[in-house]
């Protein structure tokens, strides 16, 4: 379908509506821990608008991308700090 984007989160295939952010794909993959804090706590999005940096993930091998600011694209490979 033209309105659906296919990508993977930690190797799991995920389909999201066109325009969805990577943070949405991560949540739909059932991942609640987007990253581990410096003392090892699980963390996930707080601000939703690119300022808090809690939603950082790796996208296509590039680390520390703010998942709430990057729209999903076909074939993207997203890795959380699982």
């Amino acid at each position, binding site marked *: 379908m033209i309105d659906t984007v296919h990508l993977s989160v930690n190797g799991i295939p995920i389909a999201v509506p066109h*325009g969805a952010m990577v943070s*949405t794909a991560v949540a739909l993959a059932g991942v609640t*821990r987007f990253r581990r804090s410096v003392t090892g706590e*699980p963390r996930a999005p707080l*601000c*939703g608008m690119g300022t808090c*940096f809690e939603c950082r993930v790796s996208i296509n091998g590039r680390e520390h991308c703010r998942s709430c*600011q990057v729209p999903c694209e076909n074939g993207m490979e997203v890795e959380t700090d699982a």
Partner: protein
Amino acid sequence: MPDYDVVVIGAGPAGLAAAVRAAESGVRTAMVDDNPHPGGQIWRAAAGKAPAEAARWIQSAEKHQVEWIAGARVFAAPAANRIAVEKFDGEMELGYRSLILATGARERFLPFPGWTLPNVMGAGGLQALAKSGLPVAGKKIVIAGSGPLLLAVAKYMKEHGADVRLIAEQAKTSALLAFGLRLAAHPGKLTQAVGLRAALLGISYLTSCWPVEAGGANQLESVTLRRGGKTWTERCDYLACGFGLVPNAELAALLGCRMAASGVAVDEQQQTSIQGVYSAGEATGIGGLELALVEGEIAGFAAAGEPARARALFAARDRYRRFAAALERAFAPREELKALPREETMICRCEDVTLARVRHCAGWREAKLHTRCGMGPCQGRVCGGAVEFLFGWKAESVRPPVFPARIESLTRTGP
């Protein structure tokens, strides 16, 4: 020769209004925003579709050939009249004759035990994520904190099938009633407020109520609330919690603009203390949509050399500023919230600095040097508002890069 006569930073209401008014005055205008779509946080597009009022401004910007530079964040000002921006796929520099800073606001987060758990989010934060596709239907949501945003978020969540358990507003009923009386002078606002409340039928709106702890093992499972002498626990999937807004003033500070108590200091033409640098909207003080629009229009006209057209809007701006002042008084965070964090509660989420480690510091500088509080990727954007409220610490200085940038961006851009 600069690339543009006017560069507008931020594509929310203030930025859009500024860009449209500058461009229609006949000057070459560019508008830069960190987000993929124009509209800012308040007009954030849901499923790729912007609200009608936003669409009118966006169409007007297109018609007047405002150049739209999306997904780009400003991280440095490498030379006079030049800014450096980073995009997902590289960096660029922009030259300008006039600059308009319409950088908006972010939510104020106040720390309490458990606030770092996954699924504890800002109120605007949850709304932003929902608009970008996060499903909320059937989810149990507690909305807490302070300000009119809580009502707007509750309405949005309810319309999208969420089970909104309650709204916990920290302000006192008496403060809100006083505010309500002032609303009578603003019929548009009153209708908006009443309309929101009506749509909320069925959701309890508790004043003088706030969260004291979020609970859960690896993610949020429940929130404990307090109201007067009563404390109880609500099970929920999301806690959407924000205590009002704080201006995004970092870029203005980097450029050396003078700050006022409320935000970036501006004169009657919205010009900052630096010639040719203007600021409009929430960056100059929290004031809401209408004030942001009119300030943006004034800044756009002024930056394009049309001061008389700017002047014609001063009366409207004065009216909205009075409303903003009443709003700030009504929803000011109360003293009791300072007692929420425990010794082991994180204050700085980037560097995991607890209250116990920062509470004895003399100020921001000592806290940064000794504990790394505020030194992580968000650069104090989250904990800064918290330590200002908890300890009265104000940010002292801003150094480039104002946002974390890639090494290649920094090396290709001069100091």
